């Protein structure tokens, strides 16, 4: 009898530690995750936004598979002419490098925030925003170049019209995320400088960082599926 009615706590003794911690967290009162509300919400938002980008990329894959005209070769479309030679993917390599670097400066800003080095935290936040701005600027350059070469959302000279449609839609949507992120980071940087977080702590810098790293991570997928294949 006693064997059959062993309580959950008894049985839990034999579970691995991570599982016990997980069950303890999820079955506790007040808070499921021991983080502040803003951070929890940002994580949930990121999961939801991941589904938006996931849907965009799946839709792109489906559009590409069912296009009837030949799909343009990304190595040719995204090549830069430097002097005599044509360098494939040069601009996009620089853009990706800039955006990935901005994740590094963001991480440094979070560290300085928690260490309460206000000036340094604000400096690295500003640097992150500037790198983001550089990325958007280079994207504008890339769009201008393609539009000059005759690429439009509804047609392009190199093949399937769905290429331009997907390209402008997805990079545009990601660019909007980066632009929003730049404004977001600039706001946080000015709050840090004003000393607004001295009392309530520097979690908001980290929350902004979560968003920024997410936008960078999404870019890796867009880069891989759009430019490399």
């Amino acid at each position: 009898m006693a064997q059959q009615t062993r309580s959950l706590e008894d049985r839990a003794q034999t579970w691995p530690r991570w599982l016990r911690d997980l069950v303890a967290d999820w079955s506790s009162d007040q808070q499921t995750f021991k983080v502040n509300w803003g951070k929890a919400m940002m994580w949930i938002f990121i999961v939801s936004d991941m589904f938006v980008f996931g849907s965009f990329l799946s839709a792109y894959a489906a559009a590409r598979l069912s296009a009837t005209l030949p799909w343009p070769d990304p190595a040719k479309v995204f090549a830069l002419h430097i002097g005599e030679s044509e360098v494939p993917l040069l601009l996009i390599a620089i853009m990706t490098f800039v955006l990935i670097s901005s994740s590094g400066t963001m991480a440094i800003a979070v560290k300085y925030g928690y260490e309460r080095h206000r000036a340094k935290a604000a400096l690295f936040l500003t640097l992150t925003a500037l790198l983001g701005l550089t990325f958007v600027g280079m994207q504008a350059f890339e769009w201008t170049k393609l539009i000059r070469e005759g690429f439009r959302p509804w047609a392009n000279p190199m093949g399937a019209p769905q290429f331009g449609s997907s390209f402008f839609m997805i990079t545009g949507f990601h660019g909007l995320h980066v632009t929003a992120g730049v404004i977001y980071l600039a706001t946080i940087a000015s709050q840090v400088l004003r000393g607004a977080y001295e009392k309530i702590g520097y979690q908001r810098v980290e929350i902004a960082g979560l968003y920024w790293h997410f936008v960078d991570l999404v870019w890796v997928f867009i880069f891989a599926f759009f430019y490399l294949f």
Partner: protein
Amino acid sequence: MSHHDHHQSFWTRYIFSQDHKVIAIQYTVTALFIGLVGLVLSWLMRLQLGFPGEFRFLNPGSYYQILTQHGMIMIVYLLTAILLGGFGNYLIPLMIGARDMAFPFLNMLSYWVYLLSVIVLVAAFFVPGGPTGAGWTLYPPLSALPNAAPGSGWGIKLMLVSLVIFIASATMGGLNYVTTVLQCRTKGMTLMRMPLSVWGIFIGAAMALLAFPALFVGGVMLLLDNLLGTSFFIPAVTLFGQQLPREGGNPLLFQHLFWYFGHPEVYVVILPAMGIASELIATHSRKPIFGYKAMVIAMAAIAVIGFLVWAHHMFVSGMNPYFGFFFAVSTLIIAIPSAVKVYNWLLTLWRGKIQFNTPMLFGIGWISTFIIGGLTGLPLGNVIADVPLHDTYFVVGHFHLVMGVAALMAIFGGIYHWFPKVTGRMFNETLGKLHFWVTFVGAYMIFFPMFLLGILGVPRRYFDFEALQYLPTQTAGLNIVITIAALIVGAAQVVFLVNLIWSAVRGRRAESNPWHATTLEWQTPTTPPPHGNWGAETPTVYRWAYDYSVPGAERDFIPQNVPATPTVPAGTARTV
């Protein structure tokens, strides 16, 4: 956390309020208003179907516009908004013992953005060409080509813009509901002590956050097809012998995106309704809900499997037979957790002290319509049975009963149940019962004959059936019966509204816990609860949400915030 009520003006207290209770009322009133518009649209459709040709202002074009708007309004702007925005906002903080949502400002913004989406939706009725008539599923190429469907100019664009705005609002709301349930519970309120209403709304809101993205993406792509002339969804089309210049798009892609949203959306609506129904049934039969853990697990299972069944809406669109097999099997598997829930409600009623008041009648009405609507879904989940039934009234009867009427039963029951808490006054019981019986019997008179019509082969979405020689003449008679029932049921909703408005002003004063319920919202210091809900101290929770008729207890209910007392002999109290 302190709350300063004193310096609030009329505007910040009642209009631009950040109080979850005011926002809940705003959501509910707006959703009921747009729901009335949807109701009148259904009358217009029924007038044509019951008495074809009698009403000259209806023509095939306007019929499709009415049909499209009716579907979209009822599913998105009424059901989703009232269950998550209305009930979610009111119940979550009160039931988990919080003072408000986690992000009150975001919550307020969510309502105003929702109102904007409703305004854009209604605006489509007043633009050249009128609202879109491309069907509520907005399938391309009909919805993507100019002049293909009525309202293909302004109408479709406003529809898509309104949906995108609605999704922004639902995302803001959903983030709030999920974060609040996870992070803002009061002392002692563990996840497994939460009332099932909160569980249903929580899981429904989480599903909305993962399902709406697909509609957003599909909507943006369709908008680009309409605005910029892209060809995401437009294949090679020959129109009047002319090959269109656009080609290479994939119309099936839109159906996948739409139903990847559309099927989970059914559960976004049904799970909160299930939660509310559980509350009604347990409280008014004075019994603990049967199988609480099974109820929670069943809802979670429905949520997970609900994301893997979407293509059962597309059996007739054509797909690889193995896919059809997969989606048929996953669809039928969902019947298992659904059946677990139905049995648990029935076993909760079993030998309970059932109070046949208005909320309970609607609770029982919910079980009935959910069973009939659910069972008729089983044949539709099988590819072989779906193919002949798919484009008939069988489908109309099925989803109206299971998703429309059943959800409305829970909503009406919920509104009556919490009305004393929201307004501090009782509703009129006689009018409430009248509302119930006309709605319940009338709904069956409307939708039950549709199963027969469907089996006889009456196609859905048709403006008239004149050219269909194979239909028996009785179908016309059945259509007249349905139309008359629809007019009466619609009129009965006036009784409901009059009851609400009159009782809110003139009703008898309600006690703070008129149903003798256990959950926290009935234990507030004043009724209606003030801004901040709890006065000086938030409540502490000592027990689960369903301590009804505990053997040995003084009264037949023990509120969640009552500590364990010696009046309960050890071992008899149900603890979780």
